[in-house]
């Protein structure tokens, strides 16, 4: 643990568990060892490998903002063996953590620009790290629009953030659902048409998007319609990873490793093979 073996995780303690939706939970966690915490830094968009000892490792982004370091957060959708085990975690349980890995949202490119965030489902997790980061350095950016959608009101994650952003005046917050329910008074509609309806200008703007593949596919088309060039669109890819450090080979696509060269890419970088393997 103390050595320089990259494969050995830090032991972290779960401080809080938030049930976001039926199958998504957010975990607040912290270093067990304060000296490790002092040394630790990361940037919005980076990910890490989380271990449940005895079950294995899984990859998630750090969903909290580097500007708010009293604890770290990650969010998990229950889907497979390890994520099911993660969902069993209680406050006080320990997990393994190694990272941060990968690249991050290109803050230098974003500085001074207008930003459009488009997130779907659990895809808001990596974006919220950056959104909070932007809010905490609000003066460095132009107009900020956040569009977030989910299948139904019950599938909306990070409701507390959505509420805070909606109430605050730092950003323009739009929330939409594919299908409403009796209690839902907000917007109903798929993300791409809603995006086109909001119609942000592409001038001096960067769009940052993350969500399920089908949403990304149509969002990219909508952004193109709005005049965004591939260079103006930033996305973060999901791919099965194991080592997280560009060795194990599985997240290799074409000439990149998602873990090492990503997960954050401009659409320009990946449009060649996005159509093919995503």
């Amino acid at each position, binding site marked *: *643990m103390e*050595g*320089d*073996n*990259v*494969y*050995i*995780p830090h*032991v972290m*303690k779960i401080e809080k568990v938030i049930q976001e939706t039926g199958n998504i939970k957010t975990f607040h966690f912290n270093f*067990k060892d304060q000296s490790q915490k002092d040394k630790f830094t990361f940037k919005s968009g980076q990910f890490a490998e989380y*271990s*449940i*000892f*005895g*079950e*294995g*490792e899984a990859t998630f982004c750090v969903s909290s903002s580097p500007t708010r370091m009293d604890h770290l957060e990650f969010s998990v959708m229950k*889907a*497979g063996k390890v*994520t099911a085990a993660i969902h069993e975690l209680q406050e006080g349980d*320990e997990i*393994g953590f190694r990272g941060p890995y990968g690249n991050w949202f290109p803050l230098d490119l974003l500085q001074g620009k207008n930003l459009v965030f488009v997130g779907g489902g659990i895809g808001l997790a990596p974006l919220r790290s950056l959104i909070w980061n932007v809010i905490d350095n609000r003066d460095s950016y132009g107009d900020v629009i956040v569009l977030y959608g989910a299948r139904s009101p019950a599938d909306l994650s990070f409701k507390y953030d959505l509420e805070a952003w909606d109430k605050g005046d730092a950003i323009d917050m739009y929330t939409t659902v594919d299908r409403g329910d009796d209690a839902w008074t907000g917007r109903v509609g798929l993300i791409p048409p809603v995006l086109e309806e909001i119609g942000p200008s592409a001038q001096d703007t960067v769009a940052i998007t993350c969500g399920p*593949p089908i949403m990304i596919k149509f969002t990219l088309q909508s952004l193109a319609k709005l005049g965004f060039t591939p260079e103006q669109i930033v996305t973060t890819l*999901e*791919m*099965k990873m*194991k*080592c997280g*450090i*560009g*060795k*194990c*080979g*599985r*997240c*290799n*696509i*074409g*000439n*990149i*490793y998602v873990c*090492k060269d990503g997960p954050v890419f401009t659409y320009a970088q990946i449009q*060649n*093979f996005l*159509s*093919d*393997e*995503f």
Partner: protein
Amino acid sequence: MGNKKIKKDQLNTLFNELSKDCSVLVPTRSKGYIGFDLWDENNGDFIGWYKNTTIPLKANFFPKVEDMFRFNKGEGGYEIKEILPEEESQIIFGVRPCDARALKIIGTLFADTYKDPYFLKRRENAILIGLGCNEPCDTCFCASMGASPGESQDVDLLCTDMGDELLFETVSKKGEDLLSNMRGLSDSSDGDSSKAKELREAANNKIQRKIDTSNLKEKMRANFENREYWENVSMKCMSCGICTYVCPTCHCFDIHDENNKKDGLRVRNWDSCKFPLFTRMPMENPRHEKWRRVRQRYHHKFEYYDMNFGVIACTGCGRCIRECPVNVDVTQIITGIQSL
């Protein structure tokens, strides 16, 4: 930098001598396949029949299963105990130039950015004694991959089979030190060196199988989405992992935990891009179709590696051609790409 030589019948004595200080590995077929194993007098006959190992040299540095650390849940929570390879130094004799080169290729990756302590530690503690090929196999195409059957810069000492004798030539400092400590060798003459050179050239000329690597990565890139081509060449592939596991440069792995939350091991094991599970995520699998997996293997080797490390991750050892149960041939696939 004086070269030395030894009579073949003296090899046993030499290995016995070397075994006293460190472990000496030589090729053997005692297990039913050819692989490196600890030297003993009973398996010293390999010079007579040895072509190359079935399981490549990488297995000695990057084993099929290796323990990474042990975790243990005590009263104070989880304790983690790193498990590193033993510090013992190893002499590996009979390394073919292609395999030595492969080791260097994957060594670059394991040392890149994040250092992989398991591989690097083993590599550090190993001395490679190469053995040039005078009689390359039918399946060899190392000459096309920037190498030669008889020559290697990636070993510490290089031997050449001169008939009754073996010629030892120094390649690295490590090798030079070892050579100076070896007893029972005699000095070689310039004649020996030039004879060795001739043998190497002859060996190089014997290689029949060739591929053209010029502009290959660009060609590969251009045909990344050529689905028809890839579907065609992958049609007979059985999706097993033989080619990747016998490949000296394939290095993909998986990480697993032993199924025990209280006290267990984290292990790493070989994995193969030929398996659908390799990239399967709970909701989707980007490489569910066979042709995508086949394409992945060649793109990783011939495009990604070349673009990122300046070298193609293939040394032309020909194992994948020989071991493939349906005779999928990398040279045909690359030639096919070049002819598109």
